[in-house]
């Protein structure tokens, strides 16, 4: 059985792109800059080209823990508290964002305090203190995040991470960005020090600088960061992503009053590819994040009042509860996936809502966009995308992401590609990359309810929606189709799990 699966996988080998990152200057360091001399702010985005995919086996979470300890620790001369005391009156912070492919240290400072801030920022990165007490504090936070937050108090993120693990099964992307409970538990301070020594090298550093910085800052940084070992950048090879066979469902049980749903499948293109741009437009039409314009939002929330929001994504999208509406920058992936996010639903309507979303996806694949839909969506994306890089820090992030993918500045390329598209291009790409038959589905349900829920999905039991109010006859007629919309559940690949067993190892 395993052999057959492997053979199938090999016949559908997805292109595994290589990022086009490391053309470096003579120092071995790479810089991306945006100079805006009139700005009183300076933004830093310092990327270390290593992410959770670099975690050693059995130490999953090492990349994230190391980065967090650097950003929330001390320098050779200053303790963590002394660093905080210095940053505090400037209202400056040093944030870190760990992801699958890269790790980004982010800082913003008013130019009044640039010298003092840069000194601290560079000393944290070049000579971290790695104090045992700081290590314990940060390690506790990471463990508690997985055990008590992700598994317990944020069902939407739990659904998304479950889907990620399903799509990237047996793949380096398959663990959370923060690792696993057993992985983190096994990490020692020596592991962190060794990881820093081998990973925080000139070859892996990529320095982003934007705003009103002085002319000599880049030279200063070159000199300072040249003290790092030269190292060698080794891109982690990615295997093909497993193909999806039918509908594979993971039902996660935990105490909850409403059910969160995420579903999706891998796609073989990313921002580098020409086909990505028509797909991006199609996705905006279908489910633009946090807007009232998408098909999903209109049919599930607007017409039926099923939940708070329903969106879709043509690439990894980090965001959600309490997050800003625009995409987060510096979360690039070489291998991408398409996904649908249904925000928590009343239990009795969840089966219907899953069908409703897939029914709409099938309509999209079968019918595509009309010329009118295409024109209005193109106009929307052309204008809306210009709002995404409103700050120097975000613009810098987009620029670095574009370089990661080896393409032009994303928002400019989006503009250029969209202007020459036709509705036929978009509909052809939809048919090529999207489908409503082979989909992985993660559902977070209440304790003890998982088996019945999965059984009903497998048996294709009718799931009529329960309304609080009258809706139009058109909607009722459509409901008759949706409530029995066949779901081709792959029983072998579907399961019920307890949240407390997820992200364990």
């Amino acid at each position, binding site marked *: 059985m395993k052999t057959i699966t492997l053979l199938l996988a090999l016949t559908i080998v997805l292109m595994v792109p290589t990022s086009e990152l490391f053309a470096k200057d003579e120092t071995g360091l790479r810089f991306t800059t945006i100079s805006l001399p009139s700005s009183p702010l300076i933004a830093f985005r310092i990327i270390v080209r290593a992410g959770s995919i670099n975690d050693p086996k059995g130490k999953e979470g090492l990349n994230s823990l190391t980065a967090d300890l650097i950003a929330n620790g001390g320098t050779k001369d200053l303790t963590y508290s002394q660093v905080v005391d210095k940053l505090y009156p400037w209202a400056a912070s040093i944030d870190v964002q760990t992801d699958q492919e890269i790790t980004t240290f982010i800082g913003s400072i008013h130019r009044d305090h640039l010298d003092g801030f840069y000194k601290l920022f560079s000393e944290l990165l070049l000579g971290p203190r790695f104090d045992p007490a700081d290590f314990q504090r940060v390690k506790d936070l990471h463990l508690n995040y997985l055990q008590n937050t992700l598994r317990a108090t944020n069902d939407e993120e739990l659904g998304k991470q479950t889907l990620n693990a399903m799509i990237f099964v047996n793949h380096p992307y398959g663990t959370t960005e923060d690792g696993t409970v057993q992985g983190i538990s096994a990490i020692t301070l020596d592991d962190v020090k060794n990881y820093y020594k081998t990973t925080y090298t000139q070859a892996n550093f990529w320095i982003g600088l934007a705003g009103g910085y002085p002319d000599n800052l880049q030279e200063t940084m070159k000199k300072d960061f040249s003290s790092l070992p030269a190292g060698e950048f080794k891109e982690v090879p990615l295997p093909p992503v497993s193909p999806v066979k039918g509908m594979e469902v993971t039902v996660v049980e*935990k105490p909850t009053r409403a059910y969160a749903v995420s579903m999706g499948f891998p796609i073989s293109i990313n921002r580098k590819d020409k086909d990505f741009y028509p797909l991006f437009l199609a996705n905006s039409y279908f489910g633009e994040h946090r807007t009232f314009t998408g098909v999903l939002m209109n049919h599930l929330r607007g017409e039926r009042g099923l939940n708070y929001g329903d969106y879709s994504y043509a690439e990894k999208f980090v965001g959600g509860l309490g997050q800003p509406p625009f995409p987060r920058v510096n979360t690039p992936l070489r291998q991408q996936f398409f996904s649908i996010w249904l925000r928590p639903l009343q239990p009795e309507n969840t089966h219907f809502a899953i069908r409703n979303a897939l029914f709409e996806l099938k309509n999209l694949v079968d019918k595509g966009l009309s010329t009118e839909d295409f024109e209005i969506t193109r106009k929307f994306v052309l204008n809306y995308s210009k709002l995404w890089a*409103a700050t120097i820090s975000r613009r810098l992030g987009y620029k670095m992401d574009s370089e990661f993918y080896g393409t032009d500045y994303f928002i400019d390329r989006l503009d250029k590609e969209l202007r020459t598209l036709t509705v036929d291009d978009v509909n052809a790409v939809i048919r090529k990359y999207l489908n409503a038959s082979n989909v992985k589905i993660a559902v977070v349900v209440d304790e003890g309810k998982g088996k019945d829920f999965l059984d009903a999905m497998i048996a294709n039991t009718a799931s009529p929606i329960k309304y609080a109010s009258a809706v139009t006859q058109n909607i009722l007629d459509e409901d008759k189709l949706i409530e029995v919309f066949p779901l081709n559940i792959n029983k072998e690949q579907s399961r019920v799990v307890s949240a407390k067993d997820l992200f364990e190892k």
Partner: protein
Amino acid sequence: MFRCLTVLLLVFIPMVFAVALDESGQGKIFPYTINQVTLDNGLKIVSIPFESPGIVAYYTVVRTGSRNEVEPGKSGFAHFFEHMMFRGTEKFPEQKFNDILKSIGADNNAYTSDDQTIYHTVASAEALETIMQLESDRFMNLKYSEDAFKTEAGAILGEYNKNSSNPFQSIEEKIRDAAYTEHTYKHTTMGFLKDIENMPNQYQYSLEFFKRWYRPENCVVVVVGDFNQDKLIELAKKYYGAWEAGSYKLAVPAEPQQQAEIKIDLPWKSKTLPILALAYHVPACSDKDIDFAALNLLSLVTFGETSDLYRKLVVNDQLVEFVEGDMSENRDPGLFYVFTRVKDPKNINVVRDAIYGAFGNAATTKVSEEKLASIKSHVKYQFAMSLDNPDRVADEIAHYISITGDPESINRLYAMYDKVTPDDIMNVAKKYFAPTNRTVLLLTQEEKEVKQ
């Protein structure tokens, strides 16, 4: 071919904060010009030029939030009504409204809080008239069916549901319900669950709600970014001139003084570390009362990252994941919260006593001038650095308009921070943190989970 934003380098350049950082405290924190024009019907137009070529932020502040929900059974209604404002008018039915916003590529949404409901749009400056036409029309002519109203109630329940696994939603509900006996801050902006579930039956009341609060004298339009002032006012008169003023008078019951400590135990079904939450009644947000500014600074002196308590509990002894103090900025007297998550249940009492000790210390020991200066600098830079795009500027201004009705209060409030002395901080520490003014909530995992 396309109506599209024309500026390629859309990065906004914030002003230099020379004035904001005037250490004498004489200058204004807000570095931009604030224009204010009031139309004959009472609608105020606040406009702020900002260097954001081709972009404008358009906010409508309704000075009505869950504070206004005085009638029993109507909690959560201001927020529900915010949702109904997206259901269209005769001239611009819902689909048409959305289609127009889509065609201009606008970022458009709304939110509701205790004291305000805020509708916000960021879009091309060329679209200013279109936005004003849409916004004025729905504020004057909103129309929706009872069925649409009931359907939207499902989305509200969905909004409650999306946060329902988060213990902090329940903690806020329980603390407010216990700490307040009369005032409408007793309920959260989402409202009591029983009222949310009954919302589909409140169609008639929703019509009354619109008549009461969606009136020009209760609203302020805020425009920030790239616009022409004369043209803006001309458009405002054209589109809002016919809006009739209202006359409804609100009587929010005053909260009597708390007489005894209130204790709440909140068992939690999911796996969790213990969460300890304290709440004390404190004064309303004010740009005149030094107590408000002193309490805000006290929250940082006593619970901020540089505080002795933070160093003890988070960094050195590592008994908690975090500890934070949070002073409400409300129109009426609000709550001063302290939250902490304890790593080991056996240390709950030690942590609680350390927090009480920190309040006691603040009441008997003056904070050093040096430390206070660092905290004041932090507050000012944090604010000034946040004003880096028109949306953020509009949002900050909208917040203070909600509370005081006057955008200039932002400057007066930050000037107050400059005046706060170590004595002022000691005085408020003595005045507001007696046990009889306190609500203490302890959230712990249910027993059956602990045994597993």
